[in-house]
Each structure stands twice: as C-alpha cells, then as structure tokens.
C-alpha cells in the first residue's frame, strides 16, 4: 500500500531543527522559518536564544498579553524574555557572534551545496541584497543548520555547487528540508532522514547534488 507523501510544514521543519539543540547551547535563529524554532525547544533543555538586535535569552513567540512591542526577535516578531535574559547593543550582540560563542545557528537558504557552502542573500536578477546578520553568523557560529524547502518552483536547491553568490564557504553541518534531513559531506549529501511516503529515488530526482543513503536511513519524525 502506498503511503501518502508528507511534506513538512514550516513549523515542523523548525521543530525538527530544534531537536538538535543541546542543553545550555547559545543559538541564533535567522529570519523566516528558523525563528519558529524557539517554540519547539525539547523538554528539559535550556537554550539561550540570541537575536541580532541584542536580545540574549528569549523564548517562545509571544501571544496575547505576553506581547511587548519592545521585545522582538530577528524576524521582528514579539517574543517572551526568559528569566535569565539580558539586553546588549548591536556591536556587543555581534561581538558574541564573532567571538565564536554561538553553539549553533539556524538559517534559511536559497541554495546549499555538497561542500557546505550556502547562499541566502542575493537572488538571480537582484541588484542589491539582503544580508542582515547572516554572513557574520555563518562565518563564526560553531554549527550552521539550514531550514529550507527542498525545491523552489520545482528547481532543486541542494546542489553540487551554488550558482548564487554564497553567504559563507563550507560551514553547513545539517540541512532540514520539507522532505528530509541531509548532511553535506563534501562531494555529496548524505540523507539521514526521509519524510514519510517518499522513496529515495523520488528525492534523488529532485536533488541536483549526488545523494548518499546509508543503511541507517530513518523516517523523519517530529
């Protein structure tokens, strides 16, 4: 019997990435899907979320009476402050980044390549760009995880080599897409988890880079 193909929602991609966070980690979350991660911290783990604007120690996205318009994350969405929170200015915020204190960062991306390069600041045809804090964070975080849709308008985004200008070379450790979880290995992506209902061949067909699949391939569960 054929199972229906599952594509992870934005929330579920964020929840899967959040499973990587270990107790005590300092983590930066990028604009878009990544800022959803602070809603999905695994129980029993304390994660210190850092935002570019100097908020150190925020929690879940705020709703109702929790909303304080002065307290926002990188996506400018209201969030709650944890009891251990503190506020610094922008230069100190990036001092935290550049000095290597981020245990991990979750970022969005347009493209990622098998050697760990990724691109997320300039689209084809764009004259300007939107870098934000991504280059600083990607260059200096201990681990960079990406959350991204596997394809855009049917075009593959897990590539042999990025065609768009890159954000940082060789830094990506893990890629969570809507249909699987992948590790760049240099020449290929190793698929470590696959969304329910998909076959390896179906995923290979929409992945431009070579795909390696081990015996330990798991079904992606969140």
């Amino acid at each position, binding site marked *: 019997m054929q199972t229906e193909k599952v594509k992870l929602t934005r929330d579920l991609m964020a929840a899967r990435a959040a499973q990587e966070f270990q107790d005590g980690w300092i983590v930066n979350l990028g604009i878009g899907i990544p800022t959803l991660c602070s809603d999905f911290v695994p129980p029993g783990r304390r994660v210190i979320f850092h935002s570019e604007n100097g908020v150190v120690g925020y929690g879940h996205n705020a709703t109702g009476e929790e909303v304080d318009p002065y307290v*926002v994350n990188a996506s*400018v969405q209201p969030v709650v402050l944890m009891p251990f929170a503190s*506020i610094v200015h922008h230069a100190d*915020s990036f001092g935290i980044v550049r000095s290597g204190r981020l245990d991990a960062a979750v970022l969005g991306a347009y493209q990622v390549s098998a050697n760990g390069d990724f691109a997320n600041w300039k689209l084809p045809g764009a004259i300007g760009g939107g*870098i934000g*804090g991504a*280059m600083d964070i990607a260059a200096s975080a201990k681990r960079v995880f990406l959350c991204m849709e596997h394809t855009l308008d049917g075009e593959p985004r897990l590539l042999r080599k990025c065609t768009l200008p890159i954000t*940082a070379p060789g830094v990506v450790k893990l890629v969570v897409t809507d249909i699987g979880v992948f590790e760049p290995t240099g020449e290929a992506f190793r698929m470590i988890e696959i969304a329910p209902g998909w076959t390896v061949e179906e995923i290979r067909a929409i992945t431009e880079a070579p795909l390696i699949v081990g015996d330990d391939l798991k079904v992606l569960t969140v």
Partner: protein
Amino acid sequence: MQQKVFDTFEEALSDLSDGASILIAGFGGVGSPANLMRALQLSGAKDLTLIANGAGGAGLVEEGRVRKVIASFTASTRPSRRSPVEELQQQGRIIAELTPQGTLAERIRAGGAGIPAFFTPTAVGTELAEGKEHRVFNGRTYILEEAITADYAFIRCWRADTFGNLIFRRAQRNFNPIMATAARCTVVEVEEPIVAEGELDPDQIHTPGIFVQRLVYIPADGIRTVGRPPA
C-alpha cells in the same frame, strides 16, 4: 553651557543641510527615530548619505534625495519586486554599499571609539570580500573594514535627562548607543518626559550625555508607536 532640549524636531534639525551624512538607528522599526525621519522628510534636504540597518525610510530614496546608502539590506524582501534603492542603483543614481550587519555595527562602534579600521572574519570567501585587504591571524583569514562616522545620528530612547544621558528599553537599544557615539551631532527623540539632571541613576545610563547634542520629547501628536507602523 548650551541648552540641549529643543521644543520641536524642526528646530533640532534646522542646520541640517544638503549633503549631510546621517546614522539612523533602529531594527525592524523598534528604536527607530520615526519623528526625526519625518522632520528630515519635511526639511527638503537632499544629496544625503544614510547609514542604517535597512536602506530607505520616509520616502527619501524614492524622491531621489539620497546620494548613498550603507546598509545590511538593500534589496526588497520580496524577490519578485525591486526595492526603490535597486531601481535607482540600476539607473546609476544612488550608491548602495551593502555591508553585513555585524560589520556595519562594528564599523560604527569603531568610528565612535577612535579606531580607523579593524579586521573581521565575516564575509571572507564571499564576493563582498573581493578587493579588500586580507590578512591571516593565528591561522584564520580576516578582511579589513573601515570605521564609519557621520554628521548626524538620529536616535530614539525611552528616558533621558536634560544633560542627554539616555536609557533604552529592551530591544529598542540595538544600534542606538553605538550610533550616538559616531556622529558630530547626535539628535535624540525621547518617549518619556525629559527629567532633570540627577533623576537618572548613573549606573543605569546606556549612553552618556557627552555624546548627545540635542533632545526632543515626542509630543502627543508625534509618532509614539514603538514598532513597525501598521502596513
């Protein structure tokens, strides 16, 4: 000593002339000097250089009054649509210097701290590093970035005293304290009524008044919204 408190934003910007460079604080609208931007818009000043996290604001770019922007976002966040900066860039009518956000912040801090340039690992290996001086320290490659200073800094704070000591609230702080140090004339819009000297605890001051030249309390008919104005 010169009085720092001004009654209106117009008076506080009365000497701002064509060709001025301005640091504009704020992140996503929080801590953004919306009243000073409106006064700048009404002043008619042109040929401006604007330094901010995101390029644009108050329609100045659209009106062709900006010569140069230095920002970490110059493109539209909607891929299908070009930003006003990109449109003018294509016509060769504006210079847009795209800078990573942390590099931008550090360039401003350096400007305010008497440091002309510094090395950063950010952007190494990307097209933004092309043409920049590279140097290796302890086995890691860095690029040289130069400090930024400006004629004016536009600041928004929560509380202030008449000497210009400032306190920011929560994420309002962002670029404000560093920009306040990097301008020849730092102008501040204040959310709470400005208090007398001695009313604020010196240990709680984020920006010392020595960096501040002008202060305006935001009046009841001013822009008092904290975050992004509704779309």
